């Protein structure tokens, strides 16, 4: 068993209005960042977990996302990285 650090990005699903993202996009526009087309604001969750392999750690965190960390009705998630704590 080794310890792995798995990072997950959770963002509002495409098609779900993200008013926070819109507000941030507007603010970026007023700062002069005219190139901004869309902003979505989500969560970044870091899980330290014991597993045999990095793949197993990623697999476990994926299951955690499906059952608790993300709500599939409103959010998409992706494993951003798997490393060592």
């Amino acid at each position, binding site marked *: 068993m080794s310890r792995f650090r798995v990072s997950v990005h959770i963002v509002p699903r495409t098609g779900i*209005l993200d008013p926070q993202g819109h507000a941030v996009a507007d603010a970026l526009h007023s700062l002069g960042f005219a190139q901004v087309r869309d902003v979505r604001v989500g969560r970044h969750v870091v899980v330290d977990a014991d597993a045999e392999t990095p793949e197993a750690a990623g697999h476990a965190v994926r299951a955690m996302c499906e059952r608790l960390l993300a*709500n599939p009705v409103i959010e998409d998630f992706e494993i951003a990285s798997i490393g060592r704590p």
Partner: protein
Amino acid sequence: MRFGIVTFPGSNSDIDAYQTVVDGIGEEAVMLWHKGHDLGGADVLILPGGFAYGDYLRAGAIARFSPIMREVRAFADGGGRVLAICNGFQIACEAGLLPGALVRNAGLKFLGRSVRVRVESTGTAFTNAYAPGQVLRLPIAHGEGRFVADQQVIEELEGEGRVVMRYVDAAGDPAPEGNPNGSMHNIAGIINAAGNVFGLMPHPERAADALLGAPDGLPMFESLVARVAA
């Protein structure tokens, strides 16, 4: 008839619900701590408003795993009536007792004010004491009240008459002006397919006393008595 009111850590409308049941309609109420596994012989359950577990992660996401939710689910699966108000509605959605989800208000602000909602269905155990199309004044108090669901779910809810309450404007129409939080189809409250779990964002238990100038929530509790005691 006995109402069971679940108290989660962070519930804040549980006492209002208790007083509405006991003082408002003269029925029995029992408070149920979230760590228990006993529903106290309740005939109807109320999941009250509040901020269970500080709304950590997502509103209702942690409360859904409270020990008592196992019994709440079994009660609902067996046809028991569950009234899920505000944070209770969020918990019911997270628990899968109701479809969809409640997300940040479109205007980003927490809203604490009176709104107009139209009763879209009076055939339910929760709304039979209202007149069809009746417009109610009920208070809302939420930051995450925007109802969203997949298009297919929305079509199911609409097609099966399961949108029980809708936000409306001063003319009684479900226009954008009457929609405080950006909910799809102005949805304020929905019922499950079996008709025994009703969730709504407005607070009927905070509008259940004529002395406070807001009696429109009381018939919801009277509806339950009429149906469940019958």
